[in-house]
């Protein structure tokens, strides 16, 4: 186990294990090597915590999950521009009249996506995450909770949570969903599963979107799928085009669980 830390002069290093944690010298450096008291793990002034950093988020996610019993809830994630909203528009049109659908729309700013989803008979709640430090890059369980309060849960069969477009952060935050989907555009190339493994590992299904563009791209589906299998062997894959409607049936049937 490495123990990464930084000294006041800006140098930083890893301690490989407890044994070398304290009495090391920094070769050729004549100076204070920093306060290592934090590594004296036995002091009476040390309080053991061992608490998950996201425990509060996870607690709130469980509260959401309880409120969502009986409603199939799917957290949809992707990078910006992969086609989440376009796919959702088609999905809502497809399911309209069959199911009572709610959409919780997360965005850093603007109601553009929420407006695009209007008019399909779905209940829509917008959660703008743009508070504080210029906008959160993900939805967390508390933000979702605030959105749930604005949806008529007793009248829903399916809730789609459209997360903030981002391949990094949303994967870390449980918001109370039953399943996680990712919309991936073939224009993003084959390598992203290797670059964003946390996100690709976190999802149950990957909708490989914009396949109507394949004739015009150098995208190699075989390489992409091999990369995806490398980080997430269990993920289901649906080839789709939100533009032409290809794969929509398979996606809708996955969505319904």
């Amino acid at each position, binding site marked *: 186990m490495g123990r990464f830390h930084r000294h006041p002069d800006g140098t930083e290093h890893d301690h490989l294990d407890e044994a070398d944690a304290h009495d090391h010298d920094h070769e050729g450096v004549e100076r204070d090597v920093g306060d290592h008291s934090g590594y004296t793990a036995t002091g009476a002034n040390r309080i053991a915590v061992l608490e998950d950093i996201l425990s*509060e988020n996870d607690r709130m996610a469980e509260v959401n999950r309880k409120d969502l019993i009986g409603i199939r809830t799917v957290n949809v994630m992707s990078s910006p521009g992969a086609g989440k909203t376009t796919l959702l528009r088609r999905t809502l049109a497809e399911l309209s009249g069959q199911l009572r659908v709610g959409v919780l729309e997360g965005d850093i700013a603007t109601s553009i996506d929420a407006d695009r989803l209007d008019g399909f008979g779905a209940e829509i709640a917008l959660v703008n995450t743009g508070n504080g430090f210029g906008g*959160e890059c993900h939805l967390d369980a508390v933000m979702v909770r605030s959105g749930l309060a604005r949806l008529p849960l007793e009248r829903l069969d399916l809730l789609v949570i459209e997360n903030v477009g981002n391949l990094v952060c949303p994967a870390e935050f449980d918001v109370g969903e039953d399943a996680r989907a990712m919309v991936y555009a073939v224009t993003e190339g084959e390598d992203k599963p290797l670059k964003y*493994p946390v996100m690709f590992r976190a999802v149950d299904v990957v909708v490989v979107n914009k396949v109507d563009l394949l004739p015009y791209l150098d995208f190699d589906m075989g390489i992409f799928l091999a990369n995806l299998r490398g980080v997430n062997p269990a993920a289901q894959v649906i080839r789709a085009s939100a533009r032409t409607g290809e794969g929509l049936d398979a996606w809708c049937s996955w969505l319904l669980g």
Partner: protein
Amino acid sequence: MHELSLCQAIAESVARHAQGRPVARVAVRIGHLRQVVPDSLLFSWEVLTSGTDLAGTALDVEQVPVTIECNRCGATSVLDDPIMLCGSCRDSDVTVLTGEEMLVVSLSLAEV
């Protein structure tokens, strides 16, 4: 990118456990499978705590490598990249043993 949110959560956890006592150091443990950049976490911690009771509190970040156990041959491997393959038989049916940690481990109270 979400390091600031994590620091917020760390600060809340610290406040719960310190119960008003001054804190000198906070130790956290982060697995390599979490997309957390230690530098970014340290920077966020500085930004977030400045002007609060936790200003100047050191954040010690312990990183945990990814280890997996193969469900076929039983071998344990340490991974350098996120490709979930057994280092011995290359099977993909593996269980992650370590690397997904994201914990506040302990606090060290300041001498008063």
